[in-house]
């Protein structure tokens, strides 16, 4: 299945957001996520199913003013 993670195309096997993040190396990291522009809380990732073409945003803390 083809998804876009932070704008880059990836082919992933897993069907849920939690498993896809694990496969992409984000397991256990301090991140927050959105799918197709909608926030997905950490607790909802295991039951959030992905579809071909989904746009996933993965963000982390950074410096800000």
């Amino acid at each position, binding site marked *: 299945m083809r998804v876009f993670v932070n704008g880059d195309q990836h082919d992933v096997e897993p069907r849920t957001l939690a498993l896809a993040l694990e496969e992409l190396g984000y397991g256990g990291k*301090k991140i*927050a996520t*959105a799918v197709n522009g909608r926030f997905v809380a950490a607790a909802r990732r295991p039951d959030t199913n992905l579809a071909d073409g989904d746009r996933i945003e993965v963000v*982390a803390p950074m410096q800000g003013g």
Partner: protein
Amino acid sequence: MDFYGIDLSSRLLLGTARYPSPKILAEAIKASAAEVVTVSLRREAGAERGGQSFWSFIRGLGVRVLPNTAGCHTVTEAVTTAHMARELFDTPWIKLEVIRDDETLQPDVFGLVEAARVLSEDGFEVFPYTTEDLGVADRLVEAGCRVLMPWGAPIGSARGLNNLYGLRALRAHFPEVPLVVDAGLGVPSHASAAMELGYDAVLLNTAVAEAGDPVAMARAFALAIEAGRLAFAAKPLEPRDMAAPSTPVLGRAALGD
């Protein structure tokens, strides 16, 4: 000073971006005595996973964080970003920015009010980055904001307080709402001037981070803010057009012809 029930003794809120190094950032925060620092969030990519080390660094500072929605141009973007920030930083506080104009980073005040309403209803404690417009401020308070953060001047411009009259009027209209001058300050005297107007606090980033010596500048701003607050509490004189002799005239020796 009280923000949403949190009592703070420092009236300086400090941004964490654009410092020469994390070490200098940490020293600047210490020198400023700031208890609140602003942070943001960005796409986490690349092998280094920079966000993870920044998170550890911030946690080690022992300060409260105020995440922002910098870079958001729509209500949807800002609301989604606020939700991600609340989960990441484990705080209901959000510095709400909805930007309209990319040259001046002037807020989209219509989007700002709408996003503030949506977020306040969802339990967020919103710190809106706004202008000094009284009508907008009133709408923000109606939307649930219990702190207002008008700009002094465009972000990063170092111009100081562009509209003294507007900022003074805002203070007079909202005597009970904590007001923070956010953005546009360049030197400590700008911050002192904001405090002399009766503002509750000042939020800074670039003026400290991009100074030749950010640590010394952080200390200078802290002192200026304290001085300005003391001056406000001491009830400053009103300006007048003509001189008023400070030395008593009565009893002056008659030495003329």
